[in-house]
C-alpha cells in the first residue's frame, strides 16, 4: 500500500442504553480528531449505516469495531457475529459488552417472568390483555418477525471472541480517548486485555481517608448523613470500590454514593461478587453467628449489589432455573 490508510472503525451496539455512544460524544472536540484519524464506517448515532452495510464489508475490512451493549436477543448476537467477522479488532465497549451490565440483572429472572411483568401483570396494561410479543406473528396474512428474546443476557465474550475490553458504565471519556489513541497508534497490550482502566482498585484514586476496617453495622445510604472525608465502607456504607478497577474517576464515591463496580473485577479476579463477599464479610466486627446475621441484614439484596454489573459474567451467571 503506497499511502497511509486511514483507520477503518465502526461503533455498534447490542442491548444497550446509548450511554456508551454518549461517552464517545463526551470526548467533545476529540471527535473531530477521530474523524481526521479514521473513517467511521458505522456509527448510528452520528453516521448512517445499517446491517447491510456491515454485511457488504470484506472479512477483516474494519480495523476496529467497538461493540457496546449486552447480548439479549438473537439480533444482538447476529450483529456481534457479523462485526467479529468483519473486524480485525473487536472491542467490548462498556460494562454491558464487558460483563453483561445492568441489563444482566435480568438473569435473576426467567424470560417468562420478564414477559409476564412487561405485558400481562402491570397496572397500566390494557384491561384483559393476554397478548405477548412473539418471534413470529401472522397478521392479515403477513408474517412479522421480531428477534428471539433469549432466556438470559450474555456478555459479548460469551458469543464471540473479544480482543479488548473497555470497561465502564459508561467508560469515562478520558479513557475512551486514550483507548482510541492507543488503537490508532497500535500501542496495545496482549489480546484479551482490559484497556482504558487501572490495574488497581478505585480506592487508589478515591480521596477519602482510609484506615483499618472493622464494620459493626451496615447502613443503607439514606439511613445516615455520611462524613464526606472518610471511606464510605468504614462508615458502613456498602462500596464496591475495593473490588473494582479504577479508571472511572471515582464518580460515585465522589458524589457520596458507594461504588457499584461498573469497571469490573481486577486482573486475575474471576468473580467480582465473590471478592466482595469475602472482603466485606472479613471485616465484620463480630464473632457471634447471630450477630453476624443481624449485621448482614443491614445490606438487603446484597447479591444484586455485588453483581450489579457483572452477573452474566460471574461464575454462576444467572439464577438457577427449574
Amino acid at each position: 500500500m503506497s499511502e497511509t490508510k486511514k483507520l477503518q472503525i465502526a461503533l455498534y451496539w447490542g442491548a444497550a442504553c446509548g450511554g456508551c455512544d454518549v461517552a464517545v460524544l463526551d470526548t467533545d472536540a476529540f471527535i473531530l480528531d477521530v474523524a481526521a484519524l479514521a473513517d467511521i464506517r458505522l456509527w448510528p448515532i452520528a453516521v448512517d449505516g445499517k446491517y447491510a452495510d456491515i454485511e457488504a464489508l470484506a472479512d477483516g475490512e474494519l480495523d476496529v469495531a467497538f461493540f457496546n451493549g449486552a447480548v439479549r436477543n438473537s439480533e444482538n448476537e447476529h450483529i456481534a457475529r457479523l462485526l467479529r467477522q468483519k473486524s480485525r479488532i473487536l472491542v467490548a465497549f462498556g460494562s454491558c459488552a464487558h460483563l453483561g451490565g445492568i441489563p444482566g440483572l435480568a438473569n435473576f429472572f426467567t424470560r417468562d417472568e420478564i414477559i409476564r411483568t412487561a405485558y400481562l401483570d402491570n397496572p397500566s396494561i390494557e384491561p384483559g390483555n393476554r397478548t405477548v410479543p412473539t418471534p413470529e406473528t401472522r397478521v392479515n396474512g403477513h408474517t412479522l418477525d421480531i428477534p428471539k428474546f433469549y432466556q438470559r443476557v450474555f456478555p459479548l465474550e460469551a458469543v464471540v471472541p473479544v480482543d479488548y475490553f473497555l470497561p465502564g458504565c459508561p467508560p469515562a471519556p478520558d479513557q475512551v480517548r486514550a483507548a482510541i489513541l492507543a488503537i490508532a497508534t497500535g500501542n496495545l497490550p496482549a489480546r484479551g486485555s482490559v484497556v482504558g482502566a487501572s490495574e488497581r482498585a478505585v480506592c487508589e484514586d478515591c480521596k477519602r481517608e482510609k484506615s483499618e476496617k472493622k464494620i459493626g453495622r451496615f447502613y443503607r445510604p439514606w439511613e445516615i448523613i455520611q462524613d464526606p472525608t472518610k471511606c464510605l465502607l468504614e462508615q458502613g456504607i456498602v462500596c464496591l470500590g475495593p473490588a473494582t478497577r479504577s479508571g472511572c474517576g471515582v464518580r460515585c464515591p465522589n458524589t457520596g454514593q458507594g461504588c457499584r463496580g461498573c469497571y469490573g473485577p481486577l486482573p486475575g479476579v474471576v468473580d467480582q461478587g465473590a471478592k466482595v463477599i469475602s472482603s466485606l464479610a472479613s471485616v465484620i466486627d463480630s464473632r457471634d453467628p447471630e450477630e453476624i446475621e443481624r449485621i448482614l441484614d443491614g445490606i438487603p439484596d446484597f447479591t444484586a449489589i455485588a453483581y450489579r454489573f457483572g452477573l452474566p459474567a460471574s461464575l454462576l451467571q444467572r439464577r438457577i432455573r427449574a
Partner: protein
Amino acid sequence: MQSCKIGVYICQCGTNIAKMVDCEALVAFAETLPEVALAKTYKYMCSNPGQDMIVQDIQANGLDRVVVAACSPRMHERTFRNALQVAGLNPYFFEMANIREHCSWVHDDPVAATQKAKALVRGAVLRVARHEALERKTVDMCPEVLVIGGGIAGLTAALDIADAGHRVHLVERQGSLGGNLARIDLTAPFLNAARDLLTERITRVTESERIDVMLHSRVVNLDGFIGNYRATVEVRDADGLPRKTEFLVGNVIVATGYQEFEASRITHYGYGKLPNVVTSFEFELMLRHGRIQMADGHLPRFVSIIHCVGSRSQEFHGYCSRVCCMTALKYAHEVRSAIPGCHVSDIYIDMHAFGKGHEDFYRRSSEVKTLFLMYRKGDRPVIRRADPGDTCDMLIEVNEQLSGETIEIPADLVVLMVGMEARSDAHEVARLVNISQDKEGWFIESHPKLDPVATTTDGVYIAGTCAAPKDIPDTVAQARASAARILAKVARGRIEVDAVYAEVDEARCSGCRICNDLCPYSAIEFDAVKKVSRVISAVCKACGACGAACPSGAIKARHFTDAQIFAQIEGVLL
C-alpha cells in the same frame, strides 16, 4: 503457563492402599493426564528405594514436577520434598494426593475408592503443574529460650539448655519451683523420694547464672516467629506488685503441667462430705507428714483405694491418667508398712502396669495381702457412712467382677486416685503461644508419633503433662527432647523459615486497607507514603486469610494461589 513434565507415583503402602485402590488402574489413568511424563506404582514410596526412584526419575527423565499419591501429606510431604531437593528440584514442585487416610482406609467399595483416588490424583496433577519454585529464607536464631512452667519438665529442659551455654527465662506461676511433683512423697515403682529428684534440680536452676527464674509470674504476650520471639512477662516483685518485663527468645518450651480431677464432681464418693474420703494428693500430704490418720486422728483399720476417679469414664475423661495404678500400689505398700495389720483394699477397673518395673511392682504388691476388687467401668462403687453400731467409719459396696458378687467392705479411709486433666487455664496458654488443644484440652503435638515435642508453631515445643498424662520418666524424656531439638537449631545459628507466605503485589494494591486488621500476627503493614499494604514475610504464618479477603486479588497466598486451587477444583471434579 509453561508446559512441564510431571511424574506421578502411586504408593501401595504395603496393602494399605492396594487392597482397596486399584493401583495399576491408577497408573494407567495418571498416564492419560495432561503433562504427565511417567506414572509408577511401588510398594512403599516413603521407603528409601521409593524415594530413590523419584530422585533417579527426576535426574534421568528431566521430571520437573512430582505427585505422590500415598498417605496424608501431614505424614510424608516433608519426606518427599526432601527427595526433590536431593534430586536438585525445588521442593515446592511437589504435591501429594491423600489416597490412604482419605480413601483406602475409609471406603469399602474398591470401584468407588479407585474412582475417588483418580479424582484426587487428577486434582494433584493439575495443581502441581501450576506450582512455583519457592525459595526459603533464613533468619537469625536468638539462642535464648523461654520455658513456661517450673515443674520437673521445665526444670529439666532449662538445665539442659543452660548447661549447653544458653540463657533461659523460666516463668513459674507459683511462688516456688517443683510443680505437681513437689506435692508427692515417694515415686513408684522404685520408691525414690520425689524431694530427692527435685531438690538437686531446683538448686542448680536457682544457682545457675544462665537461668533467670521468675516466680509469681506469667507470660502475657508472645509476638514474633521462630528465632525471633518477643515475650512479655508479668512479674510480681517483693511487694506483690506486678511489673512487666520484655525479652527476646528464639524458642519456647511450654511445660505447664496438669491439674488433678476435682473429686467432688463424682457425688456418690462423698468427697467433701465424708470426712475420711481423701484424694491421692491429700494422702500424699499425710505420707509426707509421716502419719496416715483419719479425720479424728485415729489410725484407720480399713483403707480402701479407688482407681480411675475422673479417668476412663464417659461422663468425665475418657482417657487413662497413666500414673494412678502404680501410685495406688505404692499406697497399698506404704499403708501396710506404716500400719501393720491394716486391711487394704484396692478397687480398680483394670490394672495398668505397662512401664519398666511396673509389673514386678504389681506382683509384689499383690503379695502384701492387698484385697483387689474389680469393678466395671460405669458401675462405680458406692460409699456410705457406716451405721453407728458398725466397727468402721464407712461401707463400700462393689459389684465385684471376678466373683460376680456384690461385696460390701468396711473402710475407715478411702483414697480417691484422682486423674490428671488439662489445666483450666491451658486455653489461655494455647492462644498465647499459638498452639492447638485437643478436645480434652491437652496441647497437640506436631505429630503424635514422629514429632511428639514440636507443635504446629515453629519454635514452640511442649514437654510433660501439658500434652497428655504421663509419668516422670516420660516427662523428663520429653523435656530433654525438646531441649535437644532447640539446641540443635540454635547450634546452626540461623533458621530457615517456610517459603509459604503471603505477598502483596504492590502494583495491584489500591491501599483499601481491608487486609490490615485481618492478620492475627500483625504481619501486614501499611505504607502510608506509597499507600500500599505489605506483608512481612518472616512474620506471616501463611494462613491465607488476607489472600482470600483481598478484594483486588493483589495478595497472593504462595503455594495456595487461586490458580493452584482452581486447578485442583477442576481436577477433583473428575
